[in-house]
């Protein structure tokens, strides 16, 4: 640990200032932006579902329909859902865009997501043993974890997880709370009862399954198989995309991990410090950032989870400059390069050993 407490508190003050500059200006521009996203999402969802049925005219229409539905699901989950659930648009006081009421087009119940992601993952980012998002309890991604035999084939596990990502996310909290298997960990204080967790898990999951795999195929009549296949494909594309984006944000080669002792009673400055080191960015064109829900700016997102995401790109240079000033590594690179290091990391830690991650 290189920075003194004094430096850390200066770091916090500078980063707070960057945030305040943006948050004081929120108004029409952000409201218009997110409403336009909502409109785009609705249009592509509805037209996608219609085009799929028109696949009998030419299969190309079906292909186009699948692409549009996948786009709709990606926008709904990333630029809209993930960000709205962080409360980025709560200030608008709009019931459709308020984190308290928002629900999204994914198997995971929004309430469960807010507890595991917003709270657990964002508070304890990359603290081994506290942030269960680090490897999701399935993958060994640093030598903080003891090697086990099952890690040998963890690349296959990773591919499976990506394929079924929405179910992984949805089951995440139940796994942590040991609802079905395993012994409850003593240090977990759960605010929601097991029966409520199960109810939300099965209720939301059943609704999503029914919609995509029963309801829409049924009303498509003779085209039912096309619609069914199209919906499976659209969900798959969304799963692979969201999983890839998230892995690129936290599991690249240079991401740091932390121990619980390092973070006991940490200052706000240290929290910021940890967020910068625990995340990684990747670059790309504007539309690409939108498709990632601006999680391509994972560092900025982790510093300012409740800042409307469209501002991450504008504050990124300021954050980078501050990081440089304090000598904190700012991990950014092209999408392909970052993804290659993720794959490398998964494979490297499939085997025993590996170098200790710096913190």
């Amino acid at each position, binding site marked *: 640990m290189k920075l003194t407490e004094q430096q850390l508190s200066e770091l916090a003050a500078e980063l707070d200032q960057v945030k305040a500059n943006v948050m004081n200006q929120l108004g029409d521009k952000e409201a*218009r932006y997110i409403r336009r996203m909502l409109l785009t999402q609705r249009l592509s969802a509805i037209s996608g579902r219609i085009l799929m049925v028109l696949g009998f005219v030419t299969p190309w229409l079906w292909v186009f329909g699948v692409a549009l539905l996948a786009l709709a699901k990606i926008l709904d989950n990333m630029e809209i859902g993930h960000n709205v659930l962080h409360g980025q648009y*709560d200030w608008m*006081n709009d019931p*459709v865009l308020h984190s308290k009421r928002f629900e*999204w087009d994914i198997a995971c119940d929004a309430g469960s997501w807010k507890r595991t992601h917003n*709270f657990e993952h964002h508070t304890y980012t990359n603290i081994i043993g506290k942030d269960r998002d680090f490897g999701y309890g399935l993958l060994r991604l640093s030598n903080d974890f003891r090697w086990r035999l099952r890690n040998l084939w963890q690349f296959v596990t990773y591919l499976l997880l990506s394929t079924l990502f929405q179910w992984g996310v949805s089951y995440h909290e139940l796994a942590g709370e040991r609802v079905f298997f395993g012994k409850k960990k003593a240090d977990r204080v759960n605010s929601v009862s097991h029966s409520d967790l199960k109810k939300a898990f099965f209720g939301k999951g059943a*609704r999503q399954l029914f919609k995509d795999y029963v309801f829409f195929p049924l009303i498509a009549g003779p085209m039912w198989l096309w619609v069914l296949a199209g919906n499976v494909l659209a969900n798959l594309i969304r799963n692979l995309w969201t999983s890839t984006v998230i892995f690129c944000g936290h599991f690249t080669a240079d991401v740091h991990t932390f121990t619980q002792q390092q973070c006991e009673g940490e200052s706000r400055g240290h929290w910021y410090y940890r967020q910068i080191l625990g995340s990684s960015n990747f670059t790309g064109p504007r539309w690409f950032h939108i498709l990632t829900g601006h999680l391509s700016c994972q560092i900025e997102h982790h510093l300012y989870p409740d800042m409307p995401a469209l501002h991450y790109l504008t504050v990124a240079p300021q954050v980078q400059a501050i990081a440089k000033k304090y000598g904190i590594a700012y991990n950014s690179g092209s999408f392909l390069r970052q993804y290659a290091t993720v794959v490398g990391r998964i494979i490297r830690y499939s085997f025993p050993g590996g170098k200790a991650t710096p913190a």
Partner: protein
Amino acid sequence: MNETISLWGQRLYRQFSLMLANQPKLSYYLQPLLRWNNAELHPDYYSARIVDSGWETEQILSVWLEPEPSWTGFTPGQHLLVTLLHQGRYISRSFSISSSSGLFAQQKQIRISCRIQPQGQFTKALAADIAKLTHLSISAATGDFVLEPQTDGAPQQSIVMVAAGSGITPLWSMLNSLRCWTSPVVLFYCVKNAAQAAFLTELRLLAAKQPLFELQLIETASTGRLNLVQQLKENTKVSLTNALYYLCGPAAMSRQYKDDLIQQGVPSDAVHAERFGLELAATQGPVKQALLIEQGKVTTIEAAAGVPLLQAAEQQGLSPRFGCRIGVCYQCVCQKKSGQVLNLRTGQISGDGPEQIQLCISAAHSDLQIEL
């Protein structure tokens, strides 16, 4: 029987809508499409086209609205919640309707009249934006501050109205809607000076035309506060104890007059009062700590005595849902887990256990835990 069917229907619709659109109602899903051009409309309310606007006095702005056809109408004296999109944010305030039921019957229009307050967030925004706005969102009309129907055959009771400032709005709506006058009506209209009195010309016209109506303009800048009881004792037309009272003004004033009247032997159910604004129960005391829990994330706020928790939370950068901010619309309701709150409207202190509270009218009475 019918009720159970409709209840089941509602549940089924909700489940269907959740399944299809992940929204409690399909209109939420379709909102971006249906109103792509009118983003300023709030999805929970009716839309109302702005027909015209103009100043009644230097401070009072009137806006004529044409509600969408499905809007349910109103009884003179009722109020509604008006919502406005200002700088990307929905803000709301409740207003009494100031136009007559006749205007609505004939032209499908209503009018609201608002005193623009320099400190008032809503009214200031309304005055600033009115020129470029085309629509406002309005709720259904509510409230029981309406004229009691006079039953045939029963001895006619005279009516005494007291308006303070913009408190004239619901009373003018009642007067302007009265079609058959059967008993005397006296209106005490308290304003600082005549220049600040909205609808004065119309009221004088009515007084000239209608012998049963008496207008008493009280200019408090020159004559001081209205002494209601004394004025009524001097008035020959009405009998103090056998009249119906309609009071509309700041909460403290209405309460004062009501107490005075009851002391004179007026039955309390003969006094109708519409209070506007939030009458803050006077409170002092040490600052309390409130833990606000949002899906596991805990924020600690300093809650000073007498400060609404909603306001305290906003000062800490949180954004709980809200609507009217005066305890009417219940949009700010959330679950208190422990601790006591003071209800700023009633002055009542809550129990210590878990219960639902309205953030906008609750202040900390002890340290608190609240689930946002």
